[in-house]
């Protein structure tokens, strides 16, 4: 038996290492570095109903052990994605997770309908993007809106539905429970933290959109705590992320309660990081004589 395989409540992954939405494009670029079939799953760049241009530059700024981005959901729209990107991704033996975003709750339901016929493995409902004017994160901070929105998506699809949570809330457990009740099969967390940098020479915010989302190793300790909390609050599985750089980080998330993990920002630093992380997890299981990943999921709660 493969000790690495894991199950996000119906979304079966051959191993727990995935890549986070927005940090891996549609897979084409990094397919030049390693075989994408190595990955448990790929969450694609966030999509919207119609094509989006994204925000003006500067869109990124580095901070200590982190970066802030305000890309603003630049994407070709869901229809173009289905036509042009799915055939490419399907060449690989990995799960396709489709990250969807909207200005209105109804946009999500529409996208779910459009994705009905598409050959994908999961829909990741992003109610946590801080980089768009309307919608996005707002939906993820109100349990009632989150519930309704997710409910409509679930009603409109036969696919596995996962909900991506924002860390910018007082109590993430409340939101997690709301989306669980609404029928989400899993939750993914965390998205980025609202943040900013100021240029002391121009005396203005560095980013054109002033604020953006902080990601990278800097946020790991907070993300890990949130995964730990959500694990105690819901019974659906967790896809954990936020600052993961290597197997040790990934294992921390698994022990905190994640059934699978995603690497994001660190892929920019080391494109081979997902592969190395997987190898490291494998070695850890062997060393600890663990037969199945499930034995250590949430173990830090014991």
């Amino acid at each position, binding site marked *: 038996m493969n000790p690495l395989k894991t199950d996000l409540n119906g979304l079966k992954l051959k191993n727990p290492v995935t890549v986070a939405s*927005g*940090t*891996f*494009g549609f897979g*084409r*670029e*990094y397919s*030049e*570095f390693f075989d994408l079939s190595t990955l448990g799953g790929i969450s694609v*760049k966030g999509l919207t109903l119609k094509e989006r*241009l*994204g*925000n*003006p*530059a*500067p*869109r*990124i*700024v*580095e901070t*200590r*052990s*982190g*970066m802030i*981005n305000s*890309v603003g959901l*630049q994407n070709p729209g869901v229809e173009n994605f289905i036509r042009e990107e799915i055939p490419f991704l399907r060449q690989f033996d990995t799960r396709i997770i489709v990250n969807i975003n909207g200005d209105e709750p109804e946009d999500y339901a529409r996208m779910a309908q459009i994705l009905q016929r598409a050959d994908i493995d999961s829909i990741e409902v992003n109610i946590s993007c801080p980089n768009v004017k309307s919608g996005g994160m707002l939906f993820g901070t109100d349990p009632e809106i989150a519930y309704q929105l997710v409910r409509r998506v679930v009603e409109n699809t036969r696919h596995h539905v996962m909900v991506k949570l924002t860390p910018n809330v007082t109590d993430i457990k409340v939101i997690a429970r709301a989306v669980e009740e609404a029928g989400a099969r899993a939750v993914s967390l965390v998205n980025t933290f609202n943040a900013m940098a100021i240029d002391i020479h121009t005396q203005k915010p560095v980013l054109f959109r002033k604020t953006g989302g902080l990601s*990278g*190793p800097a946020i790991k300790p907070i993300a890990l705590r949130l995964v730990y909390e959500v694990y105690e609050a819901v019974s659906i599985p967790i896809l954990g992320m936020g600052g993961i*750089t290597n197997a040790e980080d990934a294992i921390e998330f698994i022990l905190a309660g994640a059934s699978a993990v995603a690497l994001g*920002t660190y*892929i*920019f*630093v*080391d*494109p*081979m990081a997902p592969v190395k992380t997987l190898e490291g997890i494998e070695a850890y299981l062997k060393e600890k004589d663990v037969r199945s990943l499930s034995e250590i999921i949430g173990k830090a709660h014991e």
Partner: protein
Amino acid sequence: MRLLTGRVTENAAVNAQVFRMGVRMDEPFEFSPGQFVNIRVSEYDVPLLRRPISISRRIDETTIEFLVKVEGIGTRQMGQWSQGTRVDLIGPLGRGFDIEGFDKKAPLLILGGGIGTAPLKGLAQELADRGYERVYVLNGFKEDPYGKEDFKCFEYRVIDESKEPVYVTDYLLSHWGGIAFQGVFACGPMAMLRRVKEIFREGEIPVQISLEEKMACGVGACLGCAVKIKCGNFQHRYQKVCVDGPVFDASEVIFE
């Protein structure tokens, strides 16, 4: 583009702020002038993100040269790398200068500003190797000019603004205004590139400019390095400096 390693062969100060670094790659390395690499600065991840640096020129089949200006934490550390230091880079990246289809005997212009002259060295070398006879080079520096000896060209002029307060673009108009350039290649500060675009706006000749934008991945995945590009008459879209550039057709770029 690949993840590659090499070793520093030498690292020499060019002036107080700029250094020239040779890196011997572990395998033969192909690139075209104007392309760049994305360098990992520290295994301890401070800075976290790689730093994009143009390939200045080829030294031999496996050895390439960089010209780097110390700006902050990343470039400062690179300047301290001693001979033999291991270098981890992704490259070659981006689209370099397009040097196809020009007349070998008609004049070509290369315009550089400060550290923007880095990729132009390799460009001038390549043009000379390919037999272009009339390559004019005009470089401007705020102070402490460098690189004169490295440019293979027909005519070379360098301006030291600390002694001669004139921009390259002004010098161009007043001194080389009469020359019928068939193409222009420029790299330097935004203000300079914008002015170059204006100067050649009405002409028919292609102006290629090399842009900079903050980068995270360098390979087209993060969408961080957006540049506004004309799209039809009244619209725009964003292209990626890292894969669609860094060299763009000036007439397409929207400066703001």
